């Protein structure tokens, strides 16, 4: 019987998982857009994004547009690979759980 995979703890948090999934479909996303889509607070979202950035799964760009600050997040290749691995692991675990 094959050994069941471990789930990546960085991605496993619900908000971090939601953010990475959102970014996988978006080219780049503003902080405010991520906040609206996830329904989270500024503080919580900022903290989770910092963890994803620290893990190298997202990059952040700050700029000014029409004199207003804008913070943009983009998923990295490492983030994409990690999410893909997480989904594969989840499928295996789900298959195992369904089989029980």
């Amino acid at each position, binding site marked *: 019987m094959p050994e069941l995979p471990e789930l990546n703890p960085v991605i496993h948090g619900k908000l971090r998982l939601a953010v990475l999934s959102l970014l996988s*479909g*978006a080219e780049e996303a503003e902080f405010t857009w991520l906040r609206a889509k996830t329904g989270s607070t500024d503080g919580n979202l900022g903290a989770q994004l910092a963890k994803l950035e620290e893990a190298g799964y997202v990059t952040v760009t700050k700029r000014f547009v029409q004199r207003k600050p804008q913070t943009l997040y983009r998923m990295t290749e490492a983030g994409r690979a990690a999410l893909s691995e997480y989904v594969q692991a*989840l499928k295996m675990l789900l298959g195992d759980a369904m089989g029980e």
Partner: protein
Amino acid sequence: MREEMSGQDLKERFALIETMIAEGRRSTESWGWVFVLWGVAYLVAIAWSSWGAGQLGGSLLSGTHSDVAWPVTMFAAAALTLVIGLRRGRRKTGTLLGRAVTSVWAGIGISMLVVFPALGFSGRLEVHSFVALVAAMLGAANAGSALILRWKMQLGCAVVWWAAAAVACFGTAGQASMIFLAAVFVCQIVFGVYTMMREARRARGEVAHA
């Protein structure tokens, strides 16, 4: 961590990923204004081109001002689209779908801006082929965009453009011009206004939700 997860937890994570990926792919860009802008640009070009010619007929291209009217109006519309699009795009979240749709329209738009001036300057452009080519290209762009966005209404526009392209090959120059005008009104002005209203409703919904 694995031990703590029940089958229900795993399913919830999976559902969360699917929902968020779908949300992330949803286009946030506004396109309605582009349809209206180009619809108005075509109408301005036709009116300017036909000015003083007395009838629409062959004057869609052979009017007293058509040598100037079409190139000036089309390049002005292209410049306006670029400037307004860049200004609006800076404050929007870019999605893969948005980029795909923009690519389809940019490709078709550049093809038109290259081919029609060349045909015009070489003296080989006439009403039937002009309407058929423009309508076929706009049909292709609308169909590509509709298939990416899975939007039946826009696919309907593509069918209207393709039908206009085929029908324009028959009948008189005046009839071809009328077909072009009708297609511009339905697929640019009406569809553009409908799209703008839909986008406004969606924006209000998202603001309320946020």
